C-alpha cells in the first residue's frame, strides 16, 4: 500500500505566499474561481428549512441575456427575488443538524434477504450510486437493474423520511465498519452513494451533487420541479432515457480525474501563439453573432479556449458537465449537432442551445457554440466552418494534435523528465484564481477510452497491487490530504508525510493548491527545495499550461 493514514504526522506551518503572482494566475479569469469544497460545506451545514427554500426559483441568466441583446424589448423581472445559492453560505452554521447513524448491526436473524441484493452484479462493488424520487421510485442505479431495486429504494426513502419527519432532521450518512452511505436530498430527488472507498463524506456529497446537476443539465431544474409538483408518482426514467449513460460516465470520470476533486479545469497545454490564434479565429468569426454566449473548444477533457459574452463566466462544474457530454456522446463525432443544454451553475432554469461539432476528421477537438437563440443552427454551422478553415490555415490543428498525441518534444508531455527533479514522482497543481489545473501525468485519451468498456461493469474492489502507479492512483492517495486541507473546522495549510512507501506534500496558499509525491523517506527541507524548483518551472511554462487570458466577443 502506498500509504496508511495511521502514520501521518501532520506538520502544519505558516506559509508566506509569494509576492508576485503565483504560477498560472492572471487578472481576468474565464472561470469562476472556486473552492471545490465550498458547495458541500454549505450543503452539509444547511438545515431542513434552508434546504427546502434553496431550490426555489433563481433569476434567469438566460432571460437576462435575452433582454440585453434585445430579444425581449423590456427588461425581465424575475418573479421571485433571487435566493442565490452562492449567498447561501452566509446563512450556514445555524444548525449542525447531523443525523449520523451508526449501524446497530442487523442481528435480526431474518436471513431471507432480497436475493437480488446479493447478486454478482451488485456485491463487491467499490461504490454504488442510487437515485430515486421522493416517492421512493427508482430512477438510476450505477449497477444492476433499478427496477429490481425498487424495494431498496423504498427503504432509502423511508429512512430519509423517518429522520426528516420524526426528528425534523436531515439524514446525512450511515457508517458501518467497512462502508459508508451518504445521502443527499435535492428538490424532488434523493441521491445516495454507498461506498467502500476511502473517499470522504464530503467528496461523496460532491459526486452526488454532480449527478444531480447532470440530471438538471438534461431537464432544467424548472422542469424537474414542475414534473414532480404535478405528479409525485412520476417515473422520471421516462424523461431521462439516454441520460443514464451520461451519469454512468460522469461517475467514472469523477473517480479518475482530479479536476473534480479540486473544482478546477484542465487545459490542453499549447504554445502561447497557437492558443492565441485559436482564440482569435473564434473571436473574429463570432464577433457579429449577437446571441452567442460562449464558444468553447475542448479536446480530451481539456479546455483549449473559451470565448464569452462580456460579464459572463463559467463555473468549472458546468465545464465538467460539458466535457462529460462530449466525452460520452459518440454521435457528435459523426455529425454537427444542435442540442439543448442546461448549465446548472450558469442558469438552472433554462436551456442554452448548443451547436456541437468536432473541428475536423483529423483533429479531435470539439467546438461548442452556446447561444440563447433557439434557431441559430445555420449561422453557427457557418461560423464553425469558417473557424475550422482558419485553424487549419494557421496550423493550429497540428498544434492541437501534437498536444493530444503527447508529442515527446513538448515540455508538457513529460513534465517530470523536463523539469529534472528525479525525486518527484507525481504532482498536481491548481491555480485558485483561475480554477485551472495541471498534473504531471495527464490522463491520456486512451485511458479514458475504457470508460465505454467499463460501462456498467467493473468497479469491483480490487485486492491486487499495481507495480507502477498511474495518475489515478496518485490522485487516490491525495484524497485524504485534500480533505484535511479543505476541512472546514481545522484546515491545514501544509501537510508533509514521509514513510517507506513514499513522501507526500500537500500545500495550499491563497493562490494555489499543490500536491506532490516524492520518493520515500524524503527530508522536509529537501522536499521544499524541490517544490520551489517545481513552482519555478510551472511559472516558466504557465503560458503554455494555462489559459492566461479571458477573451470576450
Amino acid at each position, binding site marked *: 500500500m502506498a500509504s496508511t493514514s495511521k502514520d501521518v504526522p501532520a506538520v502544519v506551518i505558516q506559509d508566506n505566499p509569494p509576492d508576485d503572482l503565483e504560477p498560472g494566475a492572471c487578472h481576468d479569469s474565464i472561470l469562476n474561481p472556486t473552492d471545490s469544497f465550498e458547495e458541500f460545506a454549505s450543503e452539509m451545514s444547511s438545515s431542513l428549512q434552508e434546504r427546502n427554500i434553496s431550490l426555489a426559483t433563481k433569476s*434567469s441568466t438566460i*432571460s437576462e441575456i*435575452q*433582454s440585453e441583446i434585445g430579444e*425581449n*424589448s*423590456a*427588461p*425581465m*423581472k424575475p*418573479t421571485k427575488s433571487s435566493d442565490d445559492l452562492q449567498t447561501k453560505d452566509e446563512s450556514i452554521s445555524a444548525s449542525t443538524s447531523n443525523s449520523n447513524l451508526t449501524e446497530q448491526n442487523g442481528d*435480526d436473524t*431474518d436471513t*431471507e*434477504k*432480497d436475493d437480488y441484493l446479493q447478486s454478482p452484479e451488485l456485491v463487491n462493488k467499490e461504490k454504488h450510486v442510487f437515485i430515486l*424520487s*421522493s*416517492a*421512493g*421510485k*427508482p430512477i438510476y442505479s450505477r449497477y444492476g437493474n433499478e*427496477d*429490481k431495486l*425498487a*424495494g431498496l*429504494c*423504498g*427503504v432509502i*426513502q*423511508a*429512512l*430519509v*423520511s*423517518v429522520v*426528516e*419527519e*420524526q426528528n425534523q432532521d436531515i439524514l446525512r450518512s450511515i457508517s458501518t465498519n467497512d462502508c459508508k452511505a451518504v445521502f443527499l436530498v435535492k428538490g424532488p430527488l434523493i441521491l445516495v452513494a454507498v461506498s467502500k472507498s476511502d473517499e470522504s463524506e464530503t467528496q461523496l456529497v460532491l459526486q452526488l451533487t454532480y449527478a444531480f446537476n447532470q440530471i438538471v443539465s*438534461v*431537464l*432544467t431544474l*424548472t*422542469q424537474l420541479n*414542475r*414534473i414532480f409538483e*404535478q*405528479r*409525485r*408518482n*412520476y*417515473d422520471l*426514467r*421516462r*424523461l431521462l*432515457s439516454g441520460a443514464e449513460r451520461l451519469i454512468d460516465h460522469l461517475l467514472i470520470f469523477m473517480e479518475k480525474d482530479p479536476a473534480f476533486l479540486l473544482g478546477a479545469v484542465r487545459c490542453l497545454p499549447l504554445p502561447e501563439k497557437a492558443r492565441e490564434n485559436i482564440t482569435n479565429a473564434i473571436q473574429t468569426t463570432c464577433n457579429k453573432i449577437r446571441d452567442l454566449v460562449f464558444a468553447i473548444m475542448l479536446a480530451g477533457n481539456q479546455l483549449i479556449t473559451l470565448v464569452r459574452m462580456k460579464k459572463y463566466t463559467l463555473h468549472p462544474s458546468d465545464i465538467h458537465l460539458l466535457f462529460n457530454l462530449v466525452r460520452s456522446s459518440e454521435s457528435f463525432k459523426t455529425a454537427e449537432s444542435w442540442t*439543448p443544454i442546461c448549465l446548472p451553475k450558469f442558469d438552472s*432554469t*433554462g*436551456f442554452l442551445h448548443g451547436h456541437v461539432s468536432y473541428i475536423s476528421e483529423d483533429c479531435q477537438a470539439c467546438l461548442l457554440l452556446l447561444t440563447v437563440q*433557439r434557431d441559430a443552427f445555420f449561422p453557427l454551422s457557418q461560423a464553425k466552418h469558417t473557424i475550422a478553415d482558419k485553424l487549419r490555415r494557421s496550423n493550429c490543428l497540428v498544434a492541437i494534435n501534437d498536444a493530444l498525441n503527447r508529442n515527446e518534444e513538448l515540455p508538457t508531455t513529460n513534465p517530470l523528465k523536463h523539469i529534472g527533479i528525479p525525486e518527484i514522482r507525481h504532482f498536481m497543481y491548481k491555480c485558485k484564481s483561475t480554477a485551472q489545473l495541471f498534473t504531471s501525468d495527464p490522463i491520456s485519451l486512451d485511458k479514458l477510452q475504457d470508460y465505454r468498456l467499463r460501462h456498467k461493469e467493473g468497479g469491483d474492489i480490487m485486492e491486487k497491487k499495481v507495480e507502477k502507479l498511474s495518475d489515478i492512483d496518485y490522485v487516490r492517495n491525495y484524497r485524504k490530504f485534500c480533505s484535511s486541507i479543505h476541512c472546514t473546522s481545522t484546515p491545514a495549510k501544509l501537510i508533509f508525510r514521509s514513510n517507506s512507501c513514499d513522501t507526500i506534500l500537500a500545500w495550499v496558499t491563497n493562490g494555489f493548491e499543490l500536491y506532490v509525491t516524492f520518493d520515500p523517506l524524503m527530508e522536509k527541507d529537501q522536499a521544499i527545495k524541490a517544490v520551489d524548483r517545481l513552482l519555478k518551472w510551472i511559472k516558466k511554462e504557465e503560458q503554455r499550461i494555462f489559459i492566461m487570458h479571458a477573451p470576450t466577443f
Partner: protein
Amino acid sequence: MSSRKKALLKVIILGDSGVGKTSLMNQFVNKKFSNQYKATIGADFLTKEVIVDDRIVTMQIWDTAGQERFQSLGVAFYRGADCCVLVFDVTAPNTFKSLESWRDEFLIQASPRDPDNFPFVILGNKIDLDNRAVSAKRAQQWCQSKNDIPYFETSAKEAVNVELAFQTIARNALAQETEAELYNEFPDQIKLNANDNGRNRDGDNCAC
C-alpha cells in the same frame, strides 16, 4: 422507445391490523415474509414483476408495520402512490367500518391530483373462514357508492383471488398513468424550453 414498455408502480396496502395485509402480499409475491425493516422504519417493501398487456410492470408494494394507526412514516409513506389497496377481514365488521377512514386518511395524506378517480381496490380477506360477518353484497354496495371501486374477496391462506386482485391493481394503476400521458402534461424538453421563452415574453408583457 423500449422504456415505454417498462413501468414501476407504487402500491400501498392499508387496513386495520390483523386483516391479513402482510399475508396477502406474501401470498402474491410468493415469499416467506422477512420483516426486514419494519422495526426500524415502520414499513416494509416487496417487489414483484407482472406482465400487463405485454408491458413489464414492477410492483413496489408498501406494507405498514404492525401498529397501523401510528405508523411513523406519515406523508412520506403515501407520497406518489399509484394505487391504494384497502383490506378488511370479512369475519370482523369493525375492520369493514374502518375502510371509510382509511380511504380518507389516504386521500388526505397522499393528496392525489384527481382524488375521485384515484385507483383504489378493496379486498375482503379471510373468506376461507366460516364465521363470516360482512356479506359480499354489503361490501359491494359500499364500493359502488365510492365511485365503483373494484372489490375482490380473497383468502391469503388458500390463495383465492390474490393473483387476480393484484393484476387488477396493476392494470388500473397503469390505466391512470396512460390517461395522464394522453393529456401530455409535460411537453418534451425542447418544447418546454420554447414554453419557457414564451413565458418570459408574457412576463415582459405584464411588466409593461
